[in-house]
């Protein structure tokens, strides 16, 4: 390296900075740009090819409708209740499911963090992720369907007189999303919960805080930012529900989610421009919820969750 090492004692006060300054390479490195930065390139290319390009393509396509002006796709979406209601239908599924999953995941995570055989339980809980939505939906049809064991058992026990309508309905999709979404929500929550220094809880206990107060004053404030992230990621998954909405839902009415509307436009009406517009609206609504949740994080503490600096 040809870097000129310059003692500050030797630099005359009036001298110009560039005469004694470090080389361009050093200055770039100081800003975090060096050879290693180039390793980002392949990833960036993949991102451009697989995400940015299709996104922009769809974005532009959505402004080139089959007929009408530039915004006619969007105008049509927001004037047709059959279309714009899908936003509400999807939110009505995704938000309660995500919230319920979080509410279930927190107590389970609090229990699991104390367990010695965490890994076994975690493995069992991960299984639904690996199974995929379709298999889960199929299992639900067999189990919860009108002729499934669940309804038949209830009827045999004379608890109900007619089969419960647990599939091909809102409840069906709700349950399927709960099953497939829970492990993901749980694992994220568990990592946030176990990330909190256990001595904080002990300190709170010695200071007189019972379990409820410890949760409220110590755990919850430290968990909230992580829970907000978990909510966002789980919500995005639930919001783009498609297979279960069709398989165990009522895709014509109660569970006509926004992705079904997009599918319908693309592959039944062959109106790719309209489908792109719906996809854009889907993305925008999703983004809106995520931004709202993340923005709320600024009301919480967001620093390290360990007691001390290592």
């Amino acid at each position: 390296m040809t870097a000129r090492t310059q003692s500050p004692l030797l630099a005359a006060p009036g001298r110009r900075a560039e005469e004694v300054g470090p080389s361009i390479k050093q200055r770039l490195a100081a800003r975090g740009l060096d050879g290693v930065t180039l390793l980002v390139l392949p990833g960036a290319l993949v991102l451009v090819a697989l995400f940015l390009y299709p996104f922009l393509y769809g974005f532009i396509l959505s402004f080139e409708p089959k007929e009408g002006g530039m915004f006619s796709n969007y105008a049509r979406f927001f004037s047709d209740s059959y279309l714009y209601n899908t936003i509400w239908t999807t939110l009505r599924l995704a938000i309660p499911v995500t919230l319920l999953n979080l509410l279930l995941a927190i107590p389970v995570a609090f229990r699991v963090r104390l367990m010695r055989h965490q890994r076994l339980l975690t493995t069992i809980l991960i299984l639904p992720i690996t199974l995929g939505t379709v298999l889960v939906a199929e299992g639900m049809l067999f189990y919860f369907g009108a002729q499934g064991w669940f309804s038949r058992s209830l009827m045999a026990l004379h608890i109900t007189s007619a089969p419960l309508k647990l599939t091909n309905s809102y409840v069906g999709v709700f349950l399927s999303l709960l099953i497939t979404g829970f492990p993901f929500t749980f694992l994220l929550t568990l990592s946030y919960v176990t990330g909190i220094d256990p001595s904080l809880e002990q300190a709170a206990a010695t200071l007189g805080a019972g379990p409820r107060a410890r949760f409220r004053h110590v755990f919850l404030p430290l968990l909230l930012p992580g829970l907000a992230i978990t909510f966002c990621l789980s919500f995005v998954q639930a919001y783009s529900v498609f297979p279960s909405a069709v398989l165990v839902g009522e895709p014509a009415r109660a569970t006509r989610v926004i992705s079904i509307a997009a599918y319908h436009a693309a592959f039944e009406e062959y109106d790719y421009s309209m489908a792109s517009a719906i996809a854009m609206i889907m993305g925008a609504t999703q983004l809106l919820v995520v931004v709202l949740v993340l923005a709320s994080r600024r009301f919480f503490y967001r620093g390290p969750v360990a007691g001390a600096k290592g």
Partner: protein
Amino acid sequence: MAIQAARFQELRLDKVRRDFGHLNALKGLDLRIRQGEFIALLGPSGCGKSTALNCLAGLLPVTGGSIWLDDRRIDTLRPEDRGFGMVFQSYALFPHMTVRRNAAFGLMMRGVPKAEAAKRVDEALAMVRLQAQADKLPGQLSGGQQQRVAIARAIVIEPPLILMDEPLSNLDAKLRLEMRADIRRIHDRLGSTTIYVTHDQEEALSLADRIVVMREGTIRQVGTPEELYARPAHLDVADFMGYRNRLPGRIVGREGNTAMLEIAEGARLSGLLCEETNGQGVIAVRPEDLTTAHDGAAGVPGTVHAVEYRGRSFHGLAIGPTGQELFFHTENRIEIGAPVRLTADSSRALVFAKEAA
């Protein structure tokens, strides 16, 4: 009125046991602590001292025995119902609360009215000299400041007992000395009772009124720092008290409570007999008490292996007749490789029973 420690007469540990599966971390601890005492639990890591502290705090349930605060049995209480102040090695400050709110936490849990709580918190922060940092978050403080917040948080609830788990081990040497003085000053000023866990005998000697030396889940000796320093009851306690030379040998002579040990052929040392022995013993001598002998005196021959100049004296390491390491001090410069004869005043050397291996 100023912050004051709650009053009691005596804290009593009665055959306290703690098992982890097959591991007996505490094997029946008996200990009585009077109000106002500063007790150090001293021992190597794994000796059960932290387990004992956690059992006292209620963070670990005991698996046998009982703990009493006067007539009140406390080992069955939850930690939040015991009301002891605890200072953790990792500080365990709530990172999302300011210094003031951290310190006020215990008072908030007790439902102390805001105005009074604020007054007491101010007083506690003044005591640890952190008024200026009151509105900062723990992450903005140095390690020493964080530990002082932890101390303020523990004392503000006026606990009958303050438990400290190696509170200074994460601090640098200079800060440790400062904080040590602070901890003792606060203890004296509040009239509190403190149980302080440490593996540093210097810390224990300088802080405590009484030291409890532990080993493998049992108490080996309880005594004042002076007692422990001058007359450790067992070899392992002596080890902790700086008796670095521990030489096994055969007892060849006895006169009153002084015994003569033959360490090797022609190598003899005599010392105070501290334990009954069966003819075999170990003599323990501090390096500063083992010094070069005048010609002809009894002692242990050796060859100088290393010498360091330490200002007032030279610290040396010699190798004894059968390869023993002998740490000694001397006032005269000695060449490496030179033969020496080392001896100790018999009142400064202690003879213990040979430990069952």
